[in-house]
Structures are given as C-alpha cells and as structure tokens.
C-alpha cells in the first residue's frame, strides 16, 4: 500500500497548493482562503479539511497527536491517526500534548497551553461565521471585505433581549487581528480565549466547504460582545457555588464533560481533555509516591 503511494496520500501538487493556501491564510489573519480540497478516502464532513492540512504539513520524524472532542481514543481520532500513520511512513504518533509537534483536533484546543514549536489544525464544518445571517456567499464576501459584522451583533442583541445572555455555546464568532470574524470551528466558548495571542499557529481547514484560514501566533482573537455584556466562558459552579471538580482527577480548572451514571442516574463531570486528565492523575500519584 505504502510503496506506490506518495508520502501523505496526496500528490505533490496537491500538497503544494495546500501549503501555499496556508501561507496566504497566515498572511491575512482570519481570511478564508479557497482551495481545491481533494477527494479523500473518507466522506467529507469527517475531518477531510483538517486531514489535508495535516498531510501536507507533517514530515518524516515529526510527532502527531489527533484529538476528537478532547479524547485520543474515540472513533474519529483513531481512524484519522491510523490513516496518517499508514500514509506518512516515518512519523511518530502520541497522545501527549507536550510531545506532539502537530496536533489535529476536532472541536477542542488542549488545556495545556501550546508552545511556539507546536501547530494545531482544527477541523471545520462551517467556515463562515456570517452563514447564519446571510445565505449568499457573494454577499458574505462583501460583508467580510468591509468588516461589516453588524448583523452578527444584532443576533447577539436579540439573544440578550430574549434570554438575558448570549446563547451561542460553540462556534462563537471571533474577530481576528481587528478585522475578519471567523467561525473558530465548534470549539466550546471555553477554548476561544486560548486563541488570543496563542504561541502556536492555529490552522483551520474545511474540506467540504473548501476553505483554509488561520490564527497566526501572537495574534489578537476577540470574541464578539458588547462593552457592557462581555464574553463569558462556560460556568462549572454547582448549586452550592463550588467549582465542580473532575470526578476522575479532581482538576478544578479544566473544561468538563457531563455524563449520566447509568447505575445511579447522577450527573458525573469529567475532564474533556483526556491527556490533561491523565497528566493530573500522574502528578497526583507522583506526589503520593514522594510523600509516601
């Protein structure tokens, strides 16, 4: 299989085009660069945009981590990882955020702050934040060009009128470098502030919609909000006003997933970022060892 296929599944021209589009995306922060988006041996909508970015950027000897909603072992992550391993001989894969050079992620940014020598690729279903207020792409392009995002703000206004708060839970419209507003992919609001002045390059790829865009390192990323109704991240305090801890590692600073315990019917909260949770557990056991 690997012998008659080129490195990274795609031919060199395809990879070159994606790299060129990525460079343009970095040069114009937040601008959606169109690209041709090749057929991948999986359905569009399964992360083909992110996959193509990863395949064209990764090289021999580099280390890859693939995340699906924070986890390394769910279907999307496992399949993408094994496909990349198969088509890119000579790369290493890991589940550790610290060890990874390239991180491809579906809908989460790791809890551990990324470094300058790391790069994160996000899989994007809907690249255009304006799609909810304007159906025509032609008109959206004009709105982006003129940085006219009043209609998105009206949506926030209507939210506050109806519900007293902004109800966007994910895909929170975020203004990059003071001009273009992007759809940061369905990451929770929790992850949006991590894009602001991030040390690592953030690349976003939409395979079905054929768009690549980027948040370059150390670039402003401001979620849209009003002066007197600021942006808020998810709130994990319980009814007693206590911050809920992760049921597994006890961490009180991470983004939590809610589960229902099938035997008791209770709600259980656990870290969404699996690697982060493991690290916290490891630290605790090290502490116990040194204390014991």
């Amino acid at each position: 299989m690997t012998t008659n296929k080129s490195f990274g599944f795609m031919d060199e021209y395809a990879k070159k085009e994606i790299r060129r589009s990525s460079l343009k995306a970095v040069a114009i922060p937040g601008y959606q660069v169109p690209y041709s988006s090749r057929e991948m041996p999986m359905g569009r909508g399964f992360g083909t945009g992110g996959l193509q970015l990863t395949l064209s950027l990764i090289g021999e000897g580099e280390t890859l981590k693939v995340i699906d909603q924070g986890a390394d072992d769910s279907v999307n992550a496992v399949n993408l990882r094994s496909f990349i391993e198969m088509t890119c001989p000579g790369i290493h894969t890991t589940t550790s955020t610290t060890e990874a050079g390239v991180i491809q992620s579906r809908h989460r940014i790791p809890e551990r702050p990324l470094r300058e020598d790391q790069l994160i690729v996000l899989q994007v279903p809907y690249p255009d934040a304006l799609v909810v207020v304007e159906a025509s792409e032609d008109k959206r392009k004009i709105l982006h060009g003129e940085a006219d995002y009043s209609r998105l703000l009206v949506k926030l206004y209507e939210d506050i009128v109806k519900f007293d708060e902004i109800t966007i839970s994910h895909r929170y419209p975020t203004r990059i470098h003071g001009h273009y507003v992007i759809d940061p992919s369905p990451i929770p609001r929790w992850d949006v502030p991590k894009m602001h002045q991030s040390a690592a390059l953030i690349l976003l790829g939409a395979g079905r919609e054929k768009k690549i865009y980027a948040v370059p390192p150390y670039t402003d990323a401001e979620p849209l909000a009003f002066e007197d109704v600021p942006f808020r991240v998810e709130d994990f305090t319980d009814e007693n006003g206590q911050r809920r801890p992760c049921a597994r590692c006890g961490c009180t600073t991470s983004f939590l997933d809610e589960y229902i315990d099938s035997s008791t019917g209770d709600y259980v909260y656990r870290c969404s970022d699996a690697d982060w949770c493991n690290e916290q557990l490891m630290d605790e056991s090290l502490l116990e060892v040194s204390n014991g």
Partner: protein
Amino acid sequence: MDKVLQVRELSVVYGKGCASCYKKTGPDFNSNICPDCGSVVAAHDVSFDLYRGEILGIMGESGSGKSTAVKCLFFDEEPTNGKALFYDEDQQYNLFRLNKAQQRRLRNHRFGMVYQNPNLGLNFDISAGGNIAERLLMSNVSNYSDIRGRAVSLLSRTEVLSERMDEMPKNFSGGMQQRVQIAKALATNPPLLFLDEVTTGLDLSVQAAILDLILEIQQQSQTSMIVVTHDLGVIRLLADRTLVMKYGRVIETGLTDQILEDPQHAYTQRLVASAL
C-alpha cells in the same frame, strides 16, 4: 443657506445604451425606451440642489424615474452618468466616486432611507428594537444598554409603544411598520433623509400622522429630506420646492406653491387639474 447636496446631470440607463438613447427618449417622444437599441432611459439630466433643513419633493407618475434618482443617491443603484456632491461637517464627498466602504459608511452614518415597502427597509426576522440596533451597530455603537436606550427613545419619538419594541415587525400594522422604519432611519441622526412613497398604501388618518411626524423631525433636527411621491397632497404639505419628472426627465422645477398654482408644463397642468 448651507448646501447639503448638489446633483448634476444624473443619468441612469438600463441596457447597453447607444448614441441616440438620450436624443430619442423623453416626454417629447412619450417614451423612455430607446427605439434604436431598446435600452430604458430611467433618468437623464437630473440636476438639483438641496439645502439644510429643506424638503425637496420629486413628483411624477410611476416609471418617471423619481425613485431611481433617489436610489442612486442612496447607493442602491449605480448611475450611468452624473455627479453628486454631499456636503457634511466641512467635508465634501463626490458620491459616485467613493469606494464601496466609503459609500457604506455614508449610507450607515449620514443617510437615512424610508421605503414605500417596509419589507425593503426592515429586517422581518428580527425584532423592531433589533432593527434599530442593527443600524446603530453598523455605526460602531457597541454598548448594549446605550443601544437599548436609544431604541426606546427613537420608538417613542415615532410613537411606537416601547413595550412593543421586542416584537417582530410582522405583528405590526402597516402604519406602525412605517414608524419603525422611520425610527430606524433616524437612528444615527442623519443630516439627509430619503423618503420614497412613505405614505402610499396607508389609510388617510395614518398618512396624516406620518406626515406630521416627518414635519416635526424636519423642524426639530433641521434634517434635509428628499420626498418622492406621486401624491399631490404630500407634496403640498411637505415640500418647499418640487421637481416634476416624466419619462426620466425633469420637466418642471420651482417652489411648490408656484408649481401647484401656476403649472407651466402641459403634463403638470394635467396632473394638478386632475387632483381630487
């Protein structure tokens, strides 16, 4: 008096156009379709001045080009020819030479438009207050309570109950929708307002109330307005000066009283004589 707007030789042609378009159309030919190339000359050689606090009426039958002229000034349409200068706060803008972003800025900050059909001026998917908020947000007001307060005061000024500001415009009567549209147009305190057949299709008592409101706005804020209508009553009540258009040409201009009492052009005479 301060000049606000100066329009010279404004022409709009739909179609490819030819050398004889202007020569073979107009009131003398009873047509605005060019016999040689089939292009429609919607407006040609429209020139006028508008001063601060003045209301200029543009009168004419449907298809006479009156709305087209105004739509060009509001950047809804592009003119084929002509020049328009807008004077604002010691600045002078050559309207048809501005780039899109500059045009949008003027449109959002300094101009207001009220259409005959509220569907054009209002977004029916968002509340009445949201419609006003949209215009304020376009002009970079980013404080929620400021926007809210401003929307309440605008709606009360146009006599829409502030309790209904969070309702959808589709729940409003035609007159109310028109009031919301006027409130939206006034949101940024524009020095220039375009009114395109604002009272057409409303019943008489509502018409009177809307016209009162327009006069009040003009007197309170010295807003210059261009009122497009085919209704002589509206012209008589609102306009200081009037342009009469037919087949895309201006056939008569002057003080409104003069035009209504002593019309010179045969068409205007017929128009005035036929008024009920």
